[in-house]
């Protein structure tokens, strides 16, 4: 297991190398000159040229890449062109809200999807199942920004239960933290509930007709216990795969949600930095997000060994 983990961590290196190249290219091939944006419209061409030289933007693209990449390897993601702060510290400062959003929406996601899927499977012979299938499809198709706006109008404006924007760190009070973050987390979770509940339902229905379920029924085990101990536990394995991708994907959703709810997280920092053509920050964040993706997937693979005793990596 330890060997496997180390091997997996090593395999992250080529992945991150490819990601670095792609990120660098996308950022640098985007039109717009950072020096021009920083100095403003009235700046002279000489001043812009000076700043470009200072930022290293006048060098050939591959030279810029190797300069940046040799820093990245040492753990230094560079310095923000806009605020002169180091990118690592910017990410560290903004990660709290994003992590809170991801964690809470994962909890909400599971708290809704698991009971719903179990209920649907228990009542699979009723009309509830086809209704669920359509509703889940609807849920998956709902755009986040639209749902977020509706909920803000509903529970922020019409019924002012939740604040419409802003963020309070957990350290300053769990109540206030939850109060601010509940609505955005809910929006983030709800669009994924359909996918996870549907996946769990499908896996459970696959499992319902397996031979070992027949064995359990033939033993005289209560149907409820058959469902929980045998059907559900076996359905967790395929669902975890999808859950891993979904949780990592929540990070993408935070970009929209943080902008809508003005939460000072990674997503908002990313959007702002793109507007400012703050290359080092954009590159740093995208690299960081890719890293989280890889990390979550590794976690899922390790989780399998607990869910399925047949899987051993050594």
């Amino acid at each position, binding site marked *: 297991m330890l060997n496997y983990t180390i091997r997996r961590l090593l395999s992250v290196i080529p992945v991150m190398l490819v990601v670095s190249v792609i990120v660098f290219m996308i950022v640098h091939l985007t039109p717009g000159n950072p020096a021009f944006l920083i100095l403003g419209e009235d700046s002279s061409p000489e001043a812009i040229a000076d700043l470009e030289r200072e930022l290293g933007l006048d060098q050939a693209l591959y030279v810029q890449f190797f300069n940046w990449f040799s820093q990245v390897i040492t753990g230094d993601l560079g310095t923000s062109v806009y605020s002169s702060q180091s990118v690592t510290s910017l990410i560290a400062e903004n990660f709290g809200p994003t992590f809170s959003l991801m964690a809470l929406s994962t909890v909400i996601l599971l708290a809704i999807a698991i009971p719903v899927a179990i209920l649907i499977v228990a009542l699979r*012979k009723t009309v509830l199942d086809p209704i669920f299938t359509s509703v889940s499809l609807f849920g998956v198709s709902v755009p986040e920004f639209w749902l977020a706006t509706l909920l803000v109008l509903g529970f922020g404006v019409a019924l002012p239960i939740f604040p419409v924007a802003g963020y309070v760190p957990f350290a300053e009070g769990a109540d206030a933290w939850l109060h601010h973050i509940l609505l955005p987390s809910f929006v983030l979770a709800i669009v994924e509930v359909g996918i996870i509940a549907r996946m769990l339902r499908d896996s459970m229905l696959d499992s319902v*007709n*397996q*031979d*070992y379920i*027949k*064995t*359990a*029924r*033939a*033993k*005289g*085990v*209560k*149907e409820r*216990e058959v469902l929980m*101990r*045998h059907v559900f*536990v*076996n359905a967790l*394995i395929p669902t975890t795969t999808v859950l891993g991708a979904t949780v990592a994907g929540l990070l993408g959703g935070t970009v929209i949600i943080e902008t809508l709810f003005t939460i000072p997280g990674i997503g908002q920092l990313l959007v702002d930095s793109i507007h400012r053509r703050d290359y080092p920050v954009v590159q740093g964040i995208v690299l960081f997000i890719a890293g989280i993706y890889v990390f979550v997937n590794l976690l899922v693979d390790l989780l399998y060994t607990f*869910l*399925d*005793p*047949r899987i051993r990596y050594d």
Partner: protein
Amino acid sequence: MLQVENLHVHLDTPGGLVKAVDGVSFSIQKGETIGIVGESGSGKSVLAHSLMKLNPEPPALYPQGTIHFEGQPVLEMGKTELRKLRGNDIAMIFQDPMSSLNPVSRIGKQLIEAIQAHQKRPKQQAREKAIELLEDVGIADAKARMNSYPHQFSGGMRQRVLIAMALASNPKLLIADEPTTALDVTIQAQVLDLLKGIQEKYGTAILVITHDLGVVAHLADRILVMYAGKIVESGSAEDIFYRTSMPYTWSLLRSVPVIREGGPERLIPIDGQPPSLIDRPAGCAFEPRCPFARDACRQVDPPLEHREGNHSAACILSSNEFEEQKKQLEGVLTT
């Protein structure tokens, strides 16, 4: 102990109504071993599952007939009554031991679950009982094996575990649905011996379902031959093997490969296919494949008729007529 009267089981499939079991009657006495023999699709598995109402519904329907276990009508039982019947009075082992155990749950846990489903025993006691059961079915080092997962056992060992599980509550009837089909030959014999031993030790009645005549010859007091959802011949092993009175049984016996000195004996297949159970043709279902068929066979579907002793057969030929015809045909075939 168990009476099945004129049982019909239909499967409501998209292709049409499959008459999987079409008017079957038989009974099982205490401690008896009965074998049901038939080829794939003859309805024998559906019949076996019906005895504890284990066929998935839908598609299964029970339009006609009754099953009584110790006087109680099984088909009319509710969920709770069925749960008390299953595993407690009637237990079952299945064809494929590789897939019949929950792959993510420890053997011990699955055994304890079977014990606690019907007996209010504290966990520790149930655990001891589980170890006893494993030892009973010949699993070495049972205590340590309780913590193993199914994939750590061979096929034969898993079938033993499943048998142990079935014995958890001392059932009165053990249904074995193709218990040896998925196992290799040496293991088959071990599992059959185990079943035989259980019967001698506990007096459990056993209903064994198989397509393998060797299995029933080894085990059964009484044999029922099934074809196209009906019982076409029934009797003692001697009746079936030596006083065969139904062409299907005769063909089935001839299709068993025999290995003897002086080279391989030719295996004689039964030509054609079993009839569709959706549109059952009029007349005898075996008629299209029967070497003794005559015109009358296309019109009349012969009922199961009493012959001698406990021997019954469903054929318009009497036992003597069949014997004569058979000799003629065998004469032609050997020359």
